[in-house]
């Protein structure tokens, strides 16, 4: 019964979204408060309806109701509860429901917190959100209905794909969707501004928290996905430049650019047209990602099993939204007044440089992702574009950008003094150089590039510390004054510094693991040893074990250092009972920032086994850096300036004294 109610709620949500698509726009045109008032009410109603549908689907998963086709295909009564729950979005139909839920969640947030927005802007934003909601609701109802019944109901489900039976599934897709669906708000704000034909610094201030929130979630989501693929697939890699990974990475790059250009617009009213364009592009890339993942046009380790009608449907949505938005942009962009002027050497100039490199890098990733499709369509040749392409194109573009990062926050707005900034950064440069030389000198056989790469990471970290130190006057003023200044710094200053620092941490991890990781494939019999980095791995033997819905063969190892046992490690090959599908469970031993990573291969006669051993120095830095970045995003989000509805702090000294006494 609840299943039919869920289906019904989706249809109701579509009706609501259609009303919300039209009435508020008419209201905004005719200044009719009644029609504009429809927008927030409808937005909250659609959220409630889709939430209800989502809960209905979740209930049928949790109670293992195999009369629902989607549950039968992707669940099993023996599955642990957490996977029954997260299995809701471990398939195409269910993940579309999550997509929709997050979309209407964001609309509802705008409806709820958007009290300080001008009424016409708010109505237009919510109407544009409703266009997206209507398009995707139609898609779900016509091609991907999760509520389809089976009769007679099967007794047992076909189980969730074992690779997805992991805590990663509970965290990664929701975070990722919060990110790239979250960018829909920026898109809606941009389109609404174009409809209105009016845009100013206040617009940037309204858009910025949404961009920040989406960016923070996307950063965490991508990092989580990377770590999940790393430990789950048993291939030892953390990024494959796989088309589906690129699909989430492109909106991240564009979103990072948007975050920075919105800063210029907010502070200096410059780059207005560009910021609008970026907001449209970022969400367009999110839509493109949705299309690539679900249409089956690409071969990827992550793609959903698909059906071509869905691909065509999403392609139509994609073309309508991107085409529509760009047409509107072309018609309206020249009516927007250009903003303030600035010298090339200035904070604005640095942010333009950031945008230039980030968007160019996005374009190279886009070319690498789409080129195989285009080439196949034109010549019929099938190719794959892999890591070598991206290392050669994306890599060189990142180096000047990363070198420039520490300069940006230290430059003054409008007109900066590059020489003065360089003098402030001498300590950071010294630290970076020292570390580079130390790495080249001490790490045996280290390529010079590795030393410079790690130095680049140190440069970023030291540069962000310099920024905070300069702002608080470390070494120039007395400690209490410094402390007061530090407390008085806007949170966004700390957020930015943290994010840049995180970037440095990730760079160190990436360079270290690329340059210093070692790998070996060996056959081992019980009692035999092999070397992984500073450790020796002793194989104890294979032991069968049974889990709730799988059986496994565990390979147990003792980890020795200088002949002394320091820890244990267990790697396994599992066979999931329902699908008879084998998976590899890597064994990972974390030592400081380093990891020893072991995957099992074929069993050999006589109790031996093929073992693949990686030593991955500093690998965890990659993900810790991303955590820093997201944390920086969260800190910025709590900046007073962005707190919605918070009035600007009074600068008048009389009031300040009054508050203190």
């Amino acid at each position, binding site marked *: 019964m609840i299943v039919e109610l869920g289906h019904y709620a989706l249809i109701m949500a579509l009706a609501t979204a259609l009303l919300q698509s039209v009435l508020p726009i008419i209201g905004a045109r005719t200044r009719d408060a009644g029609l504009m008032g429809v927008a927030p009410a409808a937005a909250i109603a659609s959220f409630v309806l889709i939430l209800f549908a989502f809960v209905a689907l979740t209930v049928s998963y949790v109670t293992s109701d195999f009369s629902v086709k989607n549950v039968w295909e992707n669940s099993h009564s023996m599955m642990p509860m957490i996977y029954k729950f997260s299995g809701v979005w471990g398939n195409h139909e269910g993940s579309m429901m999550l997509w929709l839920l997050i979309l209407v969640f964001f609309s509802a947030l705008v409806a709820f917190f958007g009290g300080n927005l001008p009424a016409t802007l708010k109505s237009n934003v919510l109407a544009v959100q409703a266009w997206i909601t209507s398009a995707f609701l139609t898609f779900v109802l016509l091609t991907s209905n999760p509520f389809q019944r089976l009769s007679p109901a099967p007794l047992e489900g076909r189980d969730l794909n074992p*690779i997805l039976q992991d805590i990663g599934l509970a965290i990664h897709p929701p975070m990722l969707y919060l990110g790239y669906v979250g960018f829909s708000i920026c898109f809606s704000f941009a389109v609404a501004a174009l409809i209105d034909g009016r845009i100013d610094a206040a617009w940037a201030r309204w858009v910025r928290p949404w961009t920040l929130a989406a960016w923070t979630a996307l950063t965490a989501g991508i990092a989580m996905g990377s770590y999940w693929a790393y430990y789950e697939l048993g291939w030892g890699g953390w990024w494959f430049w796989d088309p589906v990974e690129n699909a989430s990475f492109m909106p991240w790059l564009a979103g990072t650019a948007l975050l920075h250009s919105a800063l210029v617009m907010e502070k200096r009213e410059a780059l207005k047209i560009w910021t609008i364009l970026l907001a449209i592009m970022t969400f367009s890339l999110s839509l493109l990602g949705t299309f690539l993942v679900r249409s089956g046009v690409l071969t990827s380790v992550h793609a959903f099993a698909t059906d071509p009608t869905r691909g065509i449907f999403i392609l139509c949505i994609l073309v309508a939204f991107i085409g529509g938005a760009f047409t509107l942009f072309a018609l309206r962009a020249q009516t927007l007044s250009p903003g303030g002027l600035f010298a090339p050497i200035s904070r604005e100039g640095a942010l333009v440089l950031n945008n*230039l490199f980030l968007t160019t890098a996005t374009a190279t990733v886009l070319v690498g992702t789409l080129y195989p499709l285009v080439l196949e369509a034109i010549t019929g040749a099938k190719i794959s*574009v892999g890591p070598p*392409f991206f290392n050669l194109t994306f890599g060189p573009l990142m180096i000047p950008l990363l070198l420039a990062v520490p300069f940006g926050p230290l430059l003054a707005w409008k007109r900066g003094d590059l020489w003065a900034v360089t003098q402030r950064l001498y300590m950071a440069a010294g630290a970076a150089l020292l570390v580079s030389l130390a790495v080249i000198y001490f790490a045996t056989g280290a390529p010079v590039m590795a030393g410079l790469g790690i130095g680049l990471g140190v440069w970023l970290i030291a540069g962000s510390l310099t920024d905070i130190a300069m702002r608080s006057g470390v070494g120039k003023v007395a400690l209490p004054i410094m402390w007061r200044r530090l407390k008085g710094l806007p949170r966004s200053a700390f957020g930015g510094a943290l994010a840049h620092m995180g970037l440095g941490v990730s760079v160190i991890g990436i360079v270290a693991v690329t340059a210093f990781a070692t790998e070996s494939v060996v056959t081992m019999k019980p009692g035999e040893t092999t070397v992984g980095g500073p450790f020796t791995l002793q194989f104890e033997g294979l032991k069968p074990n049974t889990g709730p819905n799988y059986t496994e063969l565990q390979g147990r190892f003792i980890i020795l250092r200088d002949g002394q046992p320091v820890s244990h490690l267990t790697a396994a090959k599992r066979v999931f009972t329902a699908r008879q599908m*084998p*998976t590899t469970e890597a064994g990972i031993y974390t030592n400081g920032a380093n990891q020893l990573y072991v995957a*099992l291969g074929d069993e050999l006669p006589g109790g031996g086994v093929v073992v693949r051993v990686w030593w991955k120095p500093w690998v965890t830095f990659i993900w810790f850096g991303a955590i820093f970045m997201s944390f920086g995003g969260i800190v910025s989000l709590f900046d007073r300036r962005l707190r919605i509805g918070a009035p600007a702090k009074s600068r008048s000294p009389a009031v300040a004294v009054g508050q203190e006494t």
Partner: protein
Amino acid sequence: MTRKQKRLAIISGGVAVIGAAVLLVLFALQDQIVYFHSPTDIVEKQIGPDTRIRLGGLVAEKSVVRGTGTKVEFVVTDTANEVAITYTGILPDLFREGQGVIVEGAFVPGDPVFVADSVLAKHDENYMPKEVAESLKAQGVWQGEEK
């Protein structure tokens, strides 16, 4: 600097970066991409040694020789032609005889055996690498649903 000069500086900087990126992309698209071939293509077209390619087809029945150590030998077929493969390492979990597979690597000079350095199998029961499905359809031995 005048307004015009400022604008010129920013535009020329932008053009320089984009130009460099375009050159890199063009160069990388020449050299760093890997073509996909079926066993029939290998027989028909002459593919030189040391050229990295992807080769896809079905793992031939009873062709897998393993258990002698870290090296595995098998044969990839599209039912019309076949190519022998050697691979050192751990095969993917869903690598099975009679199933679709894509291997990446190159021929070594003077040897008809293809040396693979990576092997990709489907990662899900319902999933067949798209290139493999298409090349099997071309050979008329596709057994899955018609799309």
